[in-house]
C-alpha cells in the first residue's frame, strides 16, 4: 500500500455505506429501500476508486466503471417494476 490516506478515507466512506445498509434493512416502505440501495451503489463506486489508488491497482477503477453502469440498470429495473411493469 503506497498511499494509506486513501485507505482510511475508504474506511470512513464504508461507515456511510453501512448506514445506507441500515436504511435498506429497516426502511419502512419499498421506495425507501431502493433509495438506500442507490446510495449504497454510489458510495461503493467512490470506495472502489479510492481503494484503486490506495493499493495502486488500476483494475479496481475499471471495476468501479462497470459497477456504476450496471447498478444504474439495476435501479432503473427496480423502479420500473415498482411502478407496475414496463409502461
Amino acid at each position: 500500500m503506497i498511499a494509506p490516506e486513501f485507505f482510511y478515507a475508504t474506511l470512513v466512506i464504508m461507515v456511510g455505506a453501512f448506514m445506507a445498509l441500515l436504511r435498506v434493512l429497516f426502511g419502512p416502505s419499498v421506495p425507501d429501500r431502493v433509495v438506500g440501495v442507490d446510495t449504497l451503489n454510489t458510495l461503493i463506486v467512490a470506495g472502489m476508486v479510492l481503494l484503486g489508488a490506495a493499493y495502486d491497482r488500476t483494475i479496481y477503477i475499471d471495476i468501479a466503471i462497470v459497477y456504476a453502469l450496471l447498478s444504474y440498470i439495476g435501479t432503473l429495473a427496480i423502479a420500473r417494476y415498482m411502478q407496475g411493469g414496463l409502461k
Partner: protein
Amino acid sequence: MNTVDYVIYTFLAISMIFNLLGSIALHRFPDVYTRLHGATKTTTFGTIFAVLAVVVHAAYQLHETGNPKYLQMALHSVVALIALLLTNPTGAHAIAKAAHLSGYKPVRAIVDAYEEKRRGDGE
C-alpha cells in the same frame, strides 16, 4: 509532507464529509423524496471530490515516476465519474416517479401538483 499532500487531504476530507452527510440524510429526513434529495446530491458531490483526489495523486505520481499506469488510473477514474454523473440524477428521477405512481405521498407537503394532474388524467 508537501503541498500536493495537503491538496489530497483537503479533497479527501470534503469527500468524506459529504458522503457521510448523504448517509445521515437517509436517517434524518421523513419520506422518500426528501431522502432522495439528501442521498443523490451529497453523494454525487462527494464522489466528485474523491475522484479529484485520486486524479491529483495519480498526476503527482506520474510526474515523479513517469509510469504510464498512473495516466491510466487518472483517465479511468474520470470515466467512472462521468458515468456516475450521467446516471445518478436519472436514477433518482426514476425512483421518485415510481414512488409517486405506486402511491407514496410526500410527507408534510404543502402542495402536490403532480397528484392533481394524475387525478385529472384519470377522470
